[in-house]
Structures are given as C-alpha cells and as structure tokens.
C-alpha cells in the first residue's frame, strides 16, 4: 500500500506549495485592492474571484490553452528554459494555486479593509516607512483573517480534482494526488484501495482542522484582560 502514502505525500506537497504561493499572491493582491482605488477595481475583483465560481474543468482548459506546449506561455517556457509544465507536479501546483487563490485573496482583502486606517496613519506620523507600516501594523492586524483564508485554501487545494486532472493528468507517483487516486481506484474496482485512500484523506482533513483550532485562539488570549 505504498501507493497510498506516495499519493498522500504528493497531495501535501502540491497543496503546501499552492498555499505558500497564495500566501504571497493573495496577500499582495488583497492589500493592493483594499488600499488603492483605481478605475476597473470591481471588474478586476470579479475576474480574480472567477476561479471560485467556475467549474474546475473550465479552469483546467484555460490553463491547458495557456501553458500547454502550443500555448503562448507554454511554448515560451519550452523555448526559453526548456520547461514543460503539463503532466508534472508543478503543473498540479499551478492548477491548485489558481483554484484556491480567491479564498486567500478575498479573506486578505476583507481583513486589510477591516484595519482602522487611522492606525496606519498613526504609524506614518511616527516616522516609519511604508513597508514597516505594512509589516508592523496592517499585516499583524489582518493576520487572523488571512490565516483562515489560507487554511481554507489548503483544504481546497488538497481536494482539488478537475483542473489538476486536466493539466497534470493521473500519473501514479508523479501527479496522482489523493482525490484523483480515489477516483481511479473506484473506476478500477479496487474497493480496498479506495477505502484506504478515503480514510487517509479524512484523517488529513481532520488534522488540518485541529491544527486550525490550535492556531486561532493563541492570538485572542493575548488581548483579553487578565
């Protein structure tokens, strides 16, 4: 049953990378949209939220068109760096990142908008740089909201199926994540394998939720009166 563990590790690797990328992308974009007013902001917000409402297979199709060997980005990557993303675990990371992105971006934007602008002004008047205002005031105050978005994104990336299957395929040990392995096992009539995979997936999700529960209250206790 080594295959199940390999699928689990691969799933965690893909979801972990997708979450890390979304930490950077979602926080940066969420902060920019919360603080800068520009024409077309609501249109941009809607476009960036699309991955949450569109069928994952549609996203997978877009990705194939873009980063496939004949796509504009795919052929450029191939010609310039010799990189091929289709049917690789890195391709699965890209698919999972895009599918989970709105969960982090939405949470980050809401969290940054909830920070009292006067606190950021107070920091500026005290003479600290714009970068320091972000790292010392905005980010710590928005962190809880961002963290909840990140955990949802990790869970979403773990369960990602449609877009990943289209971009990365289902190569055992290479791109076959847990959710895809379950599908394959059921298709092949291997009920015992499917049962193990399902059990493993459920335990992983439970562990993530418990970890989330441990992380969240640590912050609140600091602010309650002794």
């Amino acid at each position, binding site marked *: 049953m080594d295959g199940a563990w390999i699928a689990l590790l691969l799933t965690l690797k893909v979801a972990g990378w997708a979450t890390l990328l979304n930490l950077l992308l979602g926080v940066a974009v969420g902060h920019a949209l919360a603080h800068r007013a520009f024409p077309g902001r609501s249109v941009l917000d809607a476009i960036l939220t699309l991955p949450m409402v569109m069928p994952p297979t549609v996203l997978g199709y877009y990705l194939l068109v873009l980063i496939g060997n004949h796509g504009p980005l795919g052929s450029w990557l191939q010609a310039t760096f010799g990189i091929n993303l289709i049917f690789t675990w890195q391709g699965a990371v890209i698919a999972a990142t895009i599918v989970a992105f709105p969960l982090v971006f939405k949470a980050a934007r809401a969290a940054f908008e909830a920070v*009292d602008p006067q606190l950021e002004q107070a920091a500026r*008047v005290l003479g*600290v740089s714009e970068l320091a205002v972000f790292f010392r005031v905005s980010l710590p105050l928005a962190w809880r909201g961002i963290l909840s978005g990140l955990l949802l994104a990790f869970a979403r990336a773990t369960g990602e199926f449609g877009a990943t299957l289209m971009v990365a395929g289902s190569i055992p040990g290479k791109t076959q994540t847990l959710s895809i392995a379950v599908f394959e096992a059921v298709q092949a009539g291997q009920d015992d394998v499917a049962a193990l995979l399902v059990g493993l997936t459920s335990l992983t999700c439970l562990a993530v939720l418990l970890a989330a529960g441990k992380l969240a209250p640590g912050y609140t206790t600091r*602010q309650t009166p002794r």
Partner: protein
Amino acid sequence: MNTPACDGAIWDIDIARHYRHGQRRFDLALQINSSAGRLVLFGPSGAGKSQTLQMMAGLVRPDRGHIRVSAQTLFDSAAHINLSARQRQLGYVFQDYALFPHLTVLQNIAFGLARGWRNPARNISHSEVERWLLALELQPLAGLYPAQLSGGQCQRTALARALVTGPKALLLDEPFAALDRPLRLRLRDELRDLQQQIQLPMLLITHDEDDVAHFAQDIVHLAHGRVHAKEQS
C-alpha cells in the same frame, strides 16, 4: 510673553483645500499666524478643525498654500515642497488615540523608535521610553494591551508615544473629549504644565470652551472652514 517678529512665528499656516463628497462640497481656507506655545483651534464640529490638523501632519495635501512650524517649511505649493508625514517629525495625538491593539503599552510607546520592519520587543529598554513611562505614570501598565486600559491611561499612552521620538511640535485632536469631567480637568492641567516644562509647541483642537479657557495662549475660532476670530488669552 515672548514677542517674536512676524517671521519668527511658531505657527505660520496659510492653506486652502476643496472637499467633495458626492453632492456635498466644503471649502477650507485659513490663515493662522501665531507665536503661542499653546495654540487652540476652537469651533463646532464641521468647522474644519480635524482637516486642518491632518494637513499639518501631512496626511492630507492642501490644494495650495504653505505650512511652516518653527520656521521650518513642511509644505509650500509654490516652492513644490511637500514633506511626507514621516519626514515632518510632528507628534500627533488622535481623538480616539489610535493605539496599536496588538502591541503592549511599552511597545506602543517605543513604536516610533524602532526602525526597520519589526516591532519593538516586548521587553525593549530605552532611556527615552523609560523617561516618559515615568513622567506619565505608566510604568505599572507597561505590559498591558490597549484593550485593558481606561480612557485616561490610553490618553497618556498616546501622549507618551507621540513625545518619545522628540517631535518638533505636538498636534492634539480633541485629546480630552473621550474622558469624564474630573479626569479631563486633571489631564488638561497636566498637559499645560508639561508644555511649560519642555517648551514644546502644541496645537490643540477642541469644541469645548473650557479647554480654551484653561489651556490656550492663543485661540483661533473656526467656522465653516474659515477663521472667524483670533484672540489672545
């Protein structure tokens, strides 16, 4: 009383700005020239007091005019000078204090002293921080968070945070409005004594006549975005 020449004024303000919020328009245009260590802008809400303070601090840009404090030019539209809020080196006490909720009293006070992108440590030790903790009787509260403080304690913390960086002047936005009356009277006297002690120019805005009577050396009455009257007390 010191009577400096015209160009020796502490406060030399001549600003204009047009505000638009949907259908509502508001024009602010005022000139203030004063050499008072304790200048009070007095007027009803909506007179443009807070807007004036925000322009002084560099948080809002006037359309035109100039702002000079102790002969240093902070803003001059004709000369294309507009120092950013962090370059102006002014202390600002916000109306509801704007203390950082995720930092202790000690960290709040030391905030402006820590450069870089990390907040001061919870056990930071710095002579200026010690000085103001002591002067404003905040030492027993150093480890508490703002949510655990009373209104008066918040006000002192905000004051210490503004003073610790050694500002050129102090701007105070209704600093007593959130306090009950006995505390208000005490803190107002303390602030006046402090100003006399350290000779730091202070500009205070208020809608309370009592503040004017007990704190001001110079008073500027504002109404509808204009200077209504000036007097010396």
